[in-house]
């Protein structure tokens, strides 16, 4: 076994690092509550967080509240010191200057995706957030899935609607902490006062999308954490499927099955071809077509050169933390059962990975 050391830092060390990070980070931390639809309770969670922080002795102010439906939170907001918004035209916007002047430890900012009215310092609210953080003030905010730019195509496919203002997904990824505010769609329609006119099916799809986005962010955080703490190899919780393409294998079936499995398990699809010498032209063309097909299915394609194809596949699979290898059954003559086929070798050596063998297409 290689050096897959899972060095657990001791808790003292962990705490010390967190505190050190806090002390040295001139940058304020960003915590985002992500909801999959309006009225799931993001703002409530945000104010709740603010209240808890005050209880713990932190200096918390409110920088922005929801433009509409304020009445729901009015009693909550009253518990906090509010930085009066800046009024430009007839639109209220975050008063960044006033917040910086007041310089609290934490500022609560709702509706992070809002656009600022013309004449503001920045066109978008999330840019104000960046400036506030740059001044060492922590920001706790809330946002809806429909306002995450890279998710807007998917959201539009589900709801048929598209919000005009958005934040880049990188803003979500830049958060130190992301919390998913999950609630079953039934409750939204039951108690939510019917503010969102989406069907339960649409809400369910949005909910799944939001959870997967959050899972992605969390996975990235895990990777960052492991990198930062000398934990060499993360296996994550994701399935990583490697399809081995050879000139004769039923590559299309393997790729489709791999793509399906990757989608089902929310995993990652890889395809590999180890170059073989002196391939007949039609075999060469078949490989090229299969690799194109792999790309079309969203696979990450790698072409390697190595006189030992099975060795190359094994090495690649280990490096890429593959969890499942898809390969064609051996085509070695069946009567030669005492000769170990290359596939045999793969099965024996692929420790920690599933090996799935596919039947070859019937010869035409």
């Amino acid at each position, binding site marked *: 076994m290689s050096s*897959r*050391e*899972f060095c*657990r830092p*001791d*808790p003292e060390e*962990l*705490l010390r690092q*967190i505190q050190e990070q806090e002390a040295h980070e001139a940058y304020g931390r960003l915590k985002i509550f992500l909801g999959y639809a309006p009225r799931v309770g993001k703002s409530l969670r945000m104010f709740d967080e603010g209240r808890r922080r005050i209880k713990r002795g932190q200096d918390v102010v409110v920088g922005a509240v929801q433009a509409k439906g304020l009445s729901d939170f009015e009693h909550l907001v009253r518990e906090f010191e509010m930085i009066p918004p800046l009024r430009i035209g007839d639109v209220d916007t975050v008063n960044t200057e006033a917040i910086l002047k007041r310089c609290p430890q934490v500022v609560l900012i709702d509706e992070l995706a809002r656009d600022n009215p013309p004449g503001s310092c920045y066109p978008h609210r999330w840019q104000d957030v960046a400036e506030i953080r740059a001044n060492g003030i922590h920001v706790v905010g809330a946002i809806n899935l429909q306002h995450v730019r890279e998710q807007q195509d998917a959201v539009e496919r589900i709801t048929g609607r598209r919000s005009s203002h958005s934040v880049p997904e990188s803003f979500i990824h830049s958060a*130190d*902490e992301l*919390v*998913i*505010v*999950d*609630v*079953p769609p039934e409750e939204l329609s039951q*108690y939510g006062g019917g503010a969102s006119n989406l069907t339960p099916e649409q809400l*369910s*799809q949005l*909910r*799944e999308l939001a*959870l*997967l986005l*959050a*899972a992605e962010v*969390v*996975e990235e*955080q*895990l990777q960052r*954490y*492991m990198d930062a703490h000398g*934990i*060499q190899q993360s*296996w*994550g*919780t994701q399935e990583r499927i490697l399809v081995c393409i050879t000139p004769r294998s*039923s590559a299309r*079936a393997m790729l489709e*099955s791999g793509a399906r499995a990757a989608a089902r*398990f*929310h995993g990652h699809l890889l395809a590999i071809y180890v170059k073989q010498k002196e391939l007949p032209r039609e075999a060469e063309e078949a490989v090229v077509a299969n690799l194109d097909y792999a790309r079309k299915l969203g696979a990450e394609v790698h072409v390697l050169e190595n006189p030992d194809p099975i060795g190359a596949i094994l090495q690649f699979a280990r490096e890429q933390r593959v*969890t499942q290898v898809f390969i064609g*059954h*051996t085509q070695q003559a*069946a009567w030669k*059962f005492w000769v*170990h*086929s290359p*596939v*045999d070798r793969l*099965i024996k050596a692929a*420790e*920690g990975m*599933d*090996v*799935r063998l*596919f*039947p070859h*297409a019937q010869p035409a």
Partner: protein
Amino acid sequence: MESGGKRGKLKIFLGYAAGVGKTYQMLTEAHELRRHGRDVVIGYFEPHGRKETIAQTEGLEFIPRKVYEHRGSVFEDMDTGAVIARHPEVAAVDEFAHTNVPGADRLKRWQDVMLILDAGIDVLTSLNVQHIESLNDQVWHVTGIRVRETVPDWVVQEADEVVMVDVTPRALLHRLERGVVYAPEKAQKALENFFTESNLTALRELAMRQTAHQIEEKREELRAPQPVLDHTSGRRERILLWLTPHPSAAMLIRRGRRIADYLGSPCTAVYSEKDAAALEPYLNFCRNLRIDAKAIVGEEPPKAVAAYAREQGITQVFATRHAPEVSKFVNLTRDMQVTIVAERVRPG
């Protein structure tokens, strides 16, 4: 069971560790339901000495616990009979994965919950993702901890609603340090063993993906069930597990079950008759996960299993590399999809 009565609805509050707030949210929901005029009781509540959570039970009716005596010791657990006799509309039952105390009528709390649901009572319950049976290996793999108390997947899938209770690992670690979750001594131990930021982050991701998966499953259930067809033949997938007496059998069963569930296809198992005694615990495990296991006779297991698979129209066979003469078997099943399932290597 109520004659002709409707089965109760099951709602699971899913978390990724102790202290994320599952019970708190469950109780909040209980209050909410009560405000909306529903008859709600607490069937079982585990206070763990957490003040905020205990405060949240105020104003809710408790069903007193039942006292069991077993070999001179006294234990307390949920009084399922009393919950059913009281017949509320909704019962909150904490810790779905709990193993009942010795002497109780049933082994597992989820079995009691099934009875309460059968009686037409809705149930709210709490569960951590690491207690889901088919994720057991994955959890061990990311955390190094074998979770003993598990709930079969089919039970979790019966839930009408799964809600993810989310909090960041950082916030959870803060709670732990402040002694909100455990008493100081236990907290220290937890911090050292389980509550590392990487463990928590990995489990959190798992819980998110599991909830997403459950939502997708449920949506598909509502549509007409469409079994996945085998790509090449257009046949419906049929899955066969080849069991051999080796500790990896448990993992094979879990994986087979999970994949069959994903594909919506039937899943059966075979084993050599001579292994029956050695396999007994695994055969029991199969029954728990609703997999039919059949003994086959034959001098040469690889041949016998291959023949059986062909006869049954199996499209996918799952085995481990510990099966006898696995190369020979693979050679005999070149017309089928064969997966050699590996024990995932745990780093460290």
